[in-house]
């Protein structure tokens, strides 16, 4: 099977400092990978390098495109990469304000991505927007409200609807449940799990919450000071951690 995403030797330095270094892995269709590590360990830098938000110093990010098979997204032309970001890729930001258009209605936020891939019929776009708002449990009668009038949790769910409406094959998520209260977190986890199962979507999730990765991710990558120190099946890494840093991380979690 061809990996959906194949990352080779990605490094990014900020001056003398290491952002992330020598990261390589393959992600297959339908897989969810978690990236954990303390703050400053390079998780977000890596995610942004992969998702085309940041140019790495070296390495390759090869994506299995629908049209032309595996292509290195780092040397793609800008229009090609933008098209990818609108169709097969989705990026869910930690802060929903970074991923939403705050001055546009909720329905507009969802519809905009559809229009970007060529949808033109107002009725169809609106119907699809309503369908997705319903999937993320936002009432239909909020469709004309702006995200500014939404709570943080609703904004996050709206951001997810906006990203998933075009049926992407790969979703990058930066702390998707960070800053949400636990009941909303649970709802989001459930939603993400069923989307992965029903749409066969692959995802890379950066988080510092080990409980979230245990429920959501099949595989886990542990980062420290920019390097990947351990990888494996999520439950294996959490239950039988091999690296000293992972052992420290796992033993530091408070039991609820």
């Amino acid at each position, binding site marked *: 099977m061809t990996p959906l995403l194949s990352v080779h030797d990605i490094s990014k330095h900020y001056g003398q400092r290491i952002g992330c270094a020598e990261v390589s892995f393959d992600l297959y269709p339908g897989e969810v990978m978690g990236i954990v590590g303390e703050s400053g360990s390079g998780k977000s830098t890596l995610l942004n390098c992969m998702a085309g938000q940041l140019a790495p110093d070296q390495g390759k990010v090869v994506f299995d495109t629908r049209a032309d098979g595996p292509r290195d997204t780092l040397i793609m032309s800008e229009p090609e990469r933008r098209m990818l970001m609108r169709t097969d890729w989705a990026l869910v930001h930690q802060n929903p304000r970074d991923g939403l258009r705050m001055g546009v209605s909720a329905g507009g936020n969802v519809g905009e991505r559809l229009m970007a891939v060529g949808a033109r019929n107002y009725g169809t776009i609106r119907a699809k927007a309503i369908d997705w708002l319903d999937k993320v449990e936002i009432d239909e009668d909020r469709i004309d409200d702006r995200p500014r009038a939404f709570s943080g949790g609703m904004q996050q769910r709206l951001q997810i609807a906006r990203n998933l409406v075009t049926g992407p094959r790969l979703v990058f998520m930066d702390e998707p449940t960070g800053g949400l209260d636990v009941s909303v977190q649970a709802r989001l*986890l*459930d939603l993400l799990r069923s989307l992965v199962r029903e749409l066969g979507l692959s995802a890379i999730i950066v988080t510092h919450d080990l409980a979230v990765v245990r429920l959501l991710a099949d595989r886990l990558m542990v980062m420290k000071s920019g390097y990947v120190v351990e990888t494996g099946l999520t439950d294996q890494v959490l239950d039988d951690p091999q690296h000293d840093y992972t052992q420290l991380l796992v033993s530091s979690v408070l039991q609820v």
Partner: protein
Amino acid sequence: MITVENVSKVFTLHNQGGAVIPVMEHAALSVEPGECVALTGVSGAGKSTLMRMIYGNYLAASGRIEVGGLDVVGADPREILALRRHTLGYVSQFLRVVPRVPALDVVAEPMLVVGMGQEAARARARDLLTRLRIPETLWGLSPLTFSGGEQQRVNIARGFAHEYPAMLLDEPTASLDGVNRETVLTLIEEAKDRGAAIVGIFHDVVARNRVADREIDVSTFAPAAA
């Protein structure tokens, strides 16, 4: 179906002075389809450790663990995931689920992942929950709100939902009353009849004698004192 050869396990505790604790050596067992093998030994002998290594949850330090033709010890995560999805089931002692998901969906999930239709999966889930005497009024609620025994039964229903050719059962009858214990034992017997290879840990001696064809004393795999 399940073969364990010359497996050893060492825990290294980096944050506790780098203590290296060998816990198992030369572990070996083999289970044929339709057979149930019980792991025995005192608490701490390594029954669960061995079982977790078969499931790929713990990393074996050396040796070979073959389940349905895949060597779990050297396998890629995605190979182990596929094995767990289709071939190898595991009923642990604890239920671990996404909060807020109804019990019925929790039980149906393993069948949906292998591609069974919504209706068929839900029908079988309802059947299992009925057999395990979970009142219908609870099916729409998250099992996290249930009592310990009810959670254990939901866990068993989930574990037996998909007909795995190989199964690992960690104390499946613990915390169950007489009638439910009987149901679980019947489920195990049915799984054996359809050809499942089973490795189980049963503290309940009567249950063990009834379903297990052989016993393997895990304490014989203890490392020789240095």
